[in-house]
C-alpha cells in the first residue's frame, strides 16, 4: 500500500519536473524493462538502447498516462512498441550482428553445466518466432497476467493463451533439437 502510494507521488513529482523522482522510477523499473527488451530483441546493445528510449518516451508522454492505470503496464507497452518497430527495421536492414549466445564470450572450456544449459535455451528462445517469444517473455520474465500481456501487445487475451501454449511446445522442440541436432 505504501509502495503504491509512493509510486503515485513519485509520478506526480515527475510530472512537475522533479527529475530526481523520475530517476527513482527508472531505478525501480529498469531491470524489468531491460529484461523485456533483451527477451524481445535477443541483443544486448539493442536492449540497452531501447530501454533508454523507453524511459525517455515515457517521461515525455507522462502527461498522457492515466494515473488510474497500472504504471508498469503502460511502461511495458511503450517498451514493447519500441522493440516491435526496431525489429521491423532490422528485418529490412539486416546487419552482420553476432548471434546472441556468442555475446559476452564465455570460454567453452570453463562453461559449467548450468551455464551450458542456459546457453542452449537462449539459442532456442532466439529461434522462436517473435509472435511466440514476446508473450513468453512477458509471462515468464515479467510475470504478467494474460490480461496484462494482452494490453501490452494489443492482442486479444484468447490469442495470448494460444500463443503461450504453442510457444511452449515449440520451445520444447527447439531445446531438444539444440541438445541433439541429429
Amino acid at each position, binding site marked *: 500500500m505504501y509502495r503504491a502510494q509512493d509510486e503515485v507521488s513519485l509520478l506526480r513529482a515527475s510530472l512537475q519536473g522533479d527529475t530526481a523522482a523520475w530517476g527513482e522510477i527508472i531505478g525501480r523499473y529498469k531491470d524489468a524493462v531491460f529484461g523485456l527488451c533483451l527477451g524481445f530483441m535477443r541483443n544486448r546493445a539493442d536492449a540497452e538502447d531501447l530501454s533508454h528510449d523507453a524511459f525517455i518516451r515515457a517521461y515525455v508522454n507522462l502527461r498522457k498516462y492515466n494515473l488510474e492505470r497500472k504504471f508498469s503496464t503502460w511502461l511495458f507497452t511503450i517498451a514493447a512498441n519500441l522493440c516491435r518497430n526496431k525489429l521491423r527495421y532490422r*528485418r*529490412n536492414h*539486416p546487419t552482420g550482428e553476432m548471434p546472441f549466445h556468442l555475446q559476452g564470450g564465455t570460454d567453452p572450456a570453463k562453461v559449467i553445466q548450468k551455464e551450458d544449459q542456459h546457453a542452449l535455451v537462449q539459442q532456442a528462445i532466439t529461434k522462436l*518466432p*517473435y*509472435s511466440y517469444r514476446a508473450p513468453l517473455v512477458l509471462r515468464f520474465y515479467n510475470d504478467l497476467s494474460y490480461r496484462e500481456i494482452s494490453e501490452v501487445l494489443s492482442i486479444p487475451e484468447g490469442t495470448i493463451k494460444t*500463443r503461450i501454449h*504453442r510457444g511452449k511446445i515449440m520451445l520444447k522442440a527447439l531445446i531438444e533439437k539444440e541438445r541433439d541436432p541429429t
Partner: protein
Amino acid sequence: MTPRKHCVLVMMASLIVTMALPSTAQIPLHEFEQALHSIPVAQVDSMLGAIELGLNQPDFPAESLLRLIDRMARRPAPAIEREAVLVVITQAIEEGLPIEGMVDKAFEGLARNVPMAQLEDGLRQLRTLLAEVRDLLYARGVFSAAPGTQSAVANVLPNTRFNLLVVHISEAIDDYLSGGGSPFEGHLLYQEVHERLVQLEGVILDSEDVALVLERIDPSDLTQVALTAVS
C-alpha cells in the same frame, strides 16, 4: 407425349441449361485471345491452352489476368519481353499453381516501372516458390482434396484453403528473399512465414490449417525451398 414425359424432358432440359450456365458466366476465351493479339505474342496457342485450363479451375482469377494482359498491351516495351513475363504466368497455370500472387506481383512491377527482364525474374522466383512449397506440403503430409470432392481427413484440405496456404507461405519467403535475407537462415525464414500465417489466422486462413502447417514444416525445409528458388 404424356404429361409425365413432358415434365421429365423439361426437367432434363433445365438441368442441361443450368449446367451450362456457369461457363457462360465466365470470361470467354476469345477475349483473352484478343488481348494477347494486341501485344502481340508469338505463342498464342500454347498460352490460350493454359488459360483455358485455368478457366476450368476453381478460384481462377480470370478477370484480373485479363486486366493484366490489357495493361501489358499498353506498355511501351518490346513485345517479346512482355510475352516472356506473361509466359511465366501461363506456365504456372499449366502446373496447376495458384496464380493470384503472381498476377498481383506483375501489377506491382508495372506500377513501379520495373524493367521487363527484372519483372520476369521476380515472377520466376515466385513461381518456383509456389511449386516448391506445394511439394513441401505434400511431402509433409498436407494434401489438397481433388476439386469437387470433400474429405473428412484433417490433413486433406479443400483446394481453396490449401492454395491460400501455398500462396502466403511462398509470398512470405519471396518477401524475405527480396529484402536481402539469406536462404541459409532457416529460423529467420520460419519466423517470416510464421508471422504472416499467424497474422492471417482467423482472418483469411483457418486456425487449424495454420497449426497443421506450422507443426509439420521446419526451418531446414524452408531453407531447401529458398535455395531452389534463388539458384
